[in-house]
């Protein structure tokens, strides 16, 4: 499903964000990506949806060589990948429904189908009754769930979440985690970069720990662990 082989990434400013990373993620897995800030977690995620290109090595998603993909194919890769960020990235002037539908409108799906799917994901994230609100009227937790709904509305194969609970209080973070695990249970591969030790420890999923651009630990049903320095 996802594989990184000997992947390195050096940014133009000389920072080596990833150094010889090897990683395999199978379909339907849930993977926590942990490690201190600057360890390379975000860079790894950004390589998967072709926001960045690896300096060397091969990044594959669903059989496609993402690093060598033609520019015009990138949109079609991204339609198979849902992404959630710490800062939600919603359109402030648009309602919840419009924000979610936005992801489908750009793919030229029929409006009736868009409506149906938006209804589905709203139910999934539990925001059916907030559908007409604009982001500023929502709490942080609700905004992040809208972002999650937008990432899921295209039925992606993979969901990438870059510190999705970073701005949330513990209760909202837990609710977010519950939905992410539910999404994974329904068959979507989930990769989540996080600092939330409690959430990781409670979920007992695969943990990939990074440090200095390298993978230090890769365990199934593992915990956040104290060895990883924050």
């Amino acid at each position, binding site marked *: 499903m996802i594989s990184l082989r000997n992947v390195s990434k050096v940014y133009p400013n000389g920072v080596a964000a990833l150094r010889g990373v090897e990683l395999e993620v199978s379909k339907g897995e849930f993977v926590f990506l942990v490690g201190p800030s600057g360890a390379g977690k975000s860079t790894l995620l950004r390589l998967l949806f072709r926001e960045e290109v690896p300096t060397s090595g091969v990044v594959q998603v669903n059989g496609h060589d993402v690093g060598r993909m033609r520019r*015009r194919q990138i*949109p079609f890769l991204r339609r198979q990948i849902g992404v959630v960020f710490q800062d939600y990235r919603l359109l402030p002037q648009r309602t919840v429904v419009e924000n979610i539908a936005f992801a489908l409108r*750009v793919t030229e799906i029929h409006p009736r189908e868009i409506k149906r799917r938006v209804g589905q994901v709203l139910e999934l994230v539990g925001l059916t009754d907030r559908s007409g609100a604009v982001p500023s009227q929502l709490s942080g937790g609700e905004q992040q769930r809208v972002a999650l709904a937008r990432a899921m509305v295209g039925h992606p194969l993979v969901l990438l979440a870059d510190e999705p609970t970073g701005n949330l209080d513990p209760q909202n973070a837990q609710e977010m985690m519950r939905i992410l695990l539910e999404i994974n249970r329904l068959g979507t591969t989930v990769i989540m970069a996080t600092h939330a030790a409690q959430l990781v420890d409670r979920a007992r999923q695969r943990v990939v720990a990074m440090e200095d651009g390298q993978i230090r630990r890769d365990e199934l049903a593992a915990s956040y662990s104290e060895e990883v320095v924050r």
Partner: protein
Amino acid sequence: MKLRTWAFCLSEANQNLLRNPVLAIASVTTTAVSLLVLGVFLLLSANVNQIANTIESQVAVRAFFSQSTTPAQESAALVEVRGWPGVRSAKLVTRAQALSQLKQEFGNQGSVLNSLGSANPLEDSLSVTASAPKDVSPLAKRLNGLTGVVQVSYQSQVVSRLFNLIDGVRVVGLGLGILLVLGALLVINNAIRLGIIARRREISIMRLVGATESLVHWPFILEGLILGLIGSLVAAGVSWWGYGAVYSSAARSLPFLPLVSPTPIARDIAGILVVLGVVLGAVGFRLSLRRLARV
């Protein structure tokens, strides 16, 4: 793209325009003004051209006979010249007529010619007008070959000076028009750039959720086209309607002025302006493409 995707792009473009109405109005205004100046210069130069052509065709070519030519030879030449193609009219001007005409032209100072006494230094001549300006110079050449003709003159210098002046006006007008069009281009480009900056978020989210680049571009292309089109329609409307008004009022008060009829030319120029406006919008977008790629 499907129809509803075009509708989506159009509504995005509209939002851009409405988000920054002052800039949209500035773009439309500069486009309209610059295209209007261009249109006015096109109309002006077409008219000056026409006037100059008319003047040139009205210039008489004079063929002077030698003193020894007999009146019979002169009238034979007149008959021959009248039969040539490209000749509108021809008449014989005797030396006596020429002298009295000269006296008339001198007006109050006509008495200076009295010092000539009974002597008349002038010669008999043929005064020929051409039916079209292009006929003038071959006509002069042909007259030169007539028996008895010693000299042919027409006011070529006057006409060529006039044409030089017109050329100068045309160069200045065209230069001014081009500068203004460049200015309009920059303003449109700027409007699109600001739109791109204002919509950075939308653009990055569109790319994130898998919008193709053409879908990202089209709202801005449409924005440029709308700005250029509205500006050019204003310019085209004003120049078309305005020229019609000028023409009809000139026809009433200055009937001798041979203005170009508005029906083909003002319409054509209006069409040219609209096409130019659309091109301006498209080029304005093209110039901001790099900015768009960096979002």
